């Protein structure tokens, strides 16, 4: 069952009369429950692809379906709603709203979703416990370490059970053991809850743990390998 489908996707950026083709014709299908990594050198188009898949941006040409909706046909508000309900994001750094505590950051999404107080509270606490942050719920981001902050970001991304979670170089700013722990956590979540994860990474550790590796170069897919098991 495919959850994301891309068809001949091209993305062009225009800046000061120069145009850059960040993606040059991508065809790809991602199924529910995948644990997939996008790899490739800097500037190859990983972030651009993730942004499109997350509905943060729309392609210049070609079509993208996320959970059976073609995003090219959605207006801004609908895109916003799509992201709210279907997509979770983890970025490289500064993921959290600095004035909100860990718990409030996690609850934020469910507040937008208007989930009742008690359920929201329970689920947030549960997810924070699941990512190993029990007892740190009321800390503000600046009172947490980098790895803890990324865990909060992961908790926030998965708490409302989205169709896909997108993580753009989530471990880039972490030391390797912290990075490994974060990845194990995500892998764990992927297996237990069947949440679809898509990463971009340079990190060999991530590649090792991914079940599917898609390699980009100059905006094109040069290889796509699924590991068995």
């Amino acid at each position, binding site marked *: 069952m495919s959850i994301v489908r891309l068809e001949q996707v091209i993305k062009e950026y225009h800046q000061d009369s120069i145009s850059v083709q960040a993606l040059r014709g991508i065809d790809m299908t991602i199924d529910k429950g995948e644990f997939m990594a996008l790899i490739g050198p800097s500037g190859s188009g990983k972030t651009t692809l993730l942004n499109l898949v997350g509905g943060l941006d729309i392609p210049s040409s070609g079509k993208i379906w996320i959970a059976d909706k073609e995003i090219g046909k959605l207006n801004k508000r609908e895109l916003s709603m799509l992201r709210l309900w279907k997509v979770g994001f983890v970025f490289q750094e500064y993921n959290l709203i600095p*004035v*909100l505590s860990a718990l409030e950051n996690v609850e934020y999404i469910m507040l937008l979703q208007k989930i009742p107080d008690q359920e929201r509270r329970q689920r947030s606490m549960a997810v924070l416990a699941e990512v190993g942050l029990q007892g740190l719920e009321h800390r503000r981001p*600046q009172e947490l370490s980098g790895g803890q902050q990324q865990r909060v970001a992961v908790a926030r991304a998965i708490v409302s059970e989205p169709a896909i979670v997108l993580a753009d170089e989530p471990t880039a700013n972490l030391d390797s053991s912290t990075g490994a722990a974060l990845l194990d956590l995500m892998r764990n979540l992927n297996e237990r809850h069947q949440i679809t994860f898509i990463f971009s990474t340079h990190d060999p550790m991530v590649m090792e743990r991914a079940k599917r590796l898609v390699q980009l170069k100059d905006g094109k897919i040069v290889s796509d390998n699924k590991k068995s098991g």
Partner: protein
Amino acid sequence: MKLLKLAYRNLWRNKRRSSIMLAAISVGLAALIFVWGFIDGMNEQTIENSTTYLTGHIKIHKTGFHNDKALYLTLPQNSVLQRRLLKNSHVIAVTPRIEDQAMLSGADEARGVKVVGVDPQLEPEVTTIAKAITNGRYLQANDTNTIVIGDKLAERTGLKTGDKAVLVTQARDGSLAADRFKVVGLFDSGIDIIDASHVFIPLPAAQELYSLWGQITAWVLRIDNRQHAGDIAQQLKTEIGSGFEVLGWKQLLPEMVQMIRFHEIISYIVVFIVIVIVAVGVTNTILMAVKERTHEFGIMLALGTSQNQIIQLVLLESFILGIIGLLAGNLIGLSITHYFSSAGIDLTQYTQAMETMPGLTGNVYPLIRLDHVLLVSIATFTISVLPALYPAWQVSRLQPVEAIHGVVKSTTHKVWHWTKKSASSTQLLFWRIAFRNIWRNPWRSALTSGATAFGLAAFLFLYAFTDGFFEQMIDNSTDFLTAHVQIEPQGYRDELSPSLYISQPENILSKLQQYPSMVAAAPRIQVESMISSPTKTEPLILTGVKPDMETQVTRLHNVIIKGEYLKANNKSDIVLGKKLVEKLDLRISEKVVVTTQLADGSLGSAAYRLVGVYQTNNEIFDRAYGFIGLQQAQSLLAMPNRISTIAIRLQKRDLSQSTAINLDKILAGSQYKAKSWQQIMPVLVQMIDVTRLMFFVVLAIVFVVVAMGVTNTLFMSVMERTREFGVMLAMGTEPRLIVRMVVYESIVLGLIGIVLGIIMGWLLVLYYSDGMDLSGFSGATSTIPGLTDIIYPVLIIDNIWLPTLILFITGVVAAFYPALRGARLSPVVAIRHV
């Protein structure tokens, strides 16, 4: 040079921030230039008109005349002194004068006037009243008994050109003197005081009238430059020897000088308010600009740029902005001021109030004074560069590694956990976010709400001050003199004439008894007259009262400082104000003679004994009024059983207008009218309006500057949080929620500012609740009817809630621009932004 280029490019790089800062500097500066130009123009016009129409630049009297005005202090009219004066190269023209008081009787009215005896040929070389003739002609060389009078005076006395008028006065020897004059011309200088109370006659006729043959009271001079009047007067004094007093216009018009000083103080206050607010805006912007570039400075340091060079760069950037702001502000301010300096600002709606300030007319022509422009320019420039010093110094202490690593950690302040309860709605959460964001950069928030608070507090205080001013004016006027409502014959107010009277006061008085909100009513007679002591004569508004009834209505009897108030059955007693008693040089129980014109046009006079002296501390009250028994007034004026007005005291002053309307209904059909204090003192009402108008100008400026400050702060805080907004948008936060969040922040900031402002303003008012002593400007304030030297500021909620609310709304509306900027961010771009 390289640094200059770098600074320049940095400013270009962030056009929006640079333009916010430019706008703050240039709008502030332009506003300052204009406001000051307006006030300078007003002052200049006052001086110019007063000196050129009437006073001249310098006057020479016999020593002592200026303070005493006694007719034995005269100078011989010989040409020796005149020639000696003209020898001074600064002196352009010299003319002789006799100046004194008299009563002018027309066909039906009499008025106290200032008589100016002039040489018809020399006078126009010194002053310009001859050019203001609107009807008939000016005096001519061989005129004998001719007179020119102001149009206002003509209106009040019913005189026209060609009519005969009589001047009655006390001559040098103390005897009563009178002479007939033919009105040959009317003038209109546009200055109330001159047009309503000055008459010009040929010098020989004046010498005849006052028995001053061969004598004058003053030489009046025009000089090449009015600014130097003081110095030139000093020179002349040594040149002409002793026995003379040589006075520049500043000494001749001390009240005007004080009023101008008063205006100047108000200008300085406005300048101060605007400068503080602009400074805050600029400081915010620069602090932010530096913080945002920490990383960049780190790299520059790492590449071997010296710390001094970085300081120079930051300073250079604000220097460039300062210069551009300076030029733009001057350009805008000067062009606006210049435009209005020839077009004039039409305040004719408030003519009457403006004209109570001597020399002012309904049109104000702003004046560009280079020294003031220079002063505000320097001040603005300084405050736009100075704030850069602190961040520049901070930058220079950066460690390259830390700096490159990113933002200087804001770990300096503790995180406060007010509550661990989570918000139950996005609404609540966004309020929480707003509060915490404001706390996140406490300095910046403090500066912004501080500026709002400061602007508001200053405004409130100024407002309270003027409200105190007006309350006092109204209170004193109604308490001592006009009462709350008066019933009088139609048209009486403009004429104060015995030919307009109420014939059966008992009928009206008994009708009034039933009126519920009335406390007391008292019959009165009021006429213009002249009062003479053995040596002096002064104009007087003679008021006949029934002491037992009058004391129920007004409270003059409470401010008797010598002797006592009128007794119920006195024979021929009079009570006068302190100033008048001083002028007439009188003591208790001395005799005075009051002369007035009767309804049939003939003159009547009677002698009275001074029994009491009152002091209200208001110049006009203490100088212009005198009180005798009603019966005495009736017999002097040959109008038994008649009165001019009925003065009424109500339970509350606020009821005046509605009561006047109701009483008018009761009086319908008669030729009597009820007038509220507002109608009795229209000048007072207009003066209040003018001041309000000025306040609206100040308010508008404060608003613009506050709005810019708030926009500025929020804009910076939005830009600072670009990435954060990107994350929020990515997670599916709708743009309108982002708008809401920023607007909430402005509401919190605005509320803090306003609450602080109200508290500060209120404390200031409280501090001065025992009164602000303005006796330094006594001449200026106590000449305003009803006002004394001590002002008690009051906060009148009715007057301040609206400006406060508008200020708040201005701040919130100003937030929408940065809020929309935040909401329109593309999440992709925003997340890339670090």
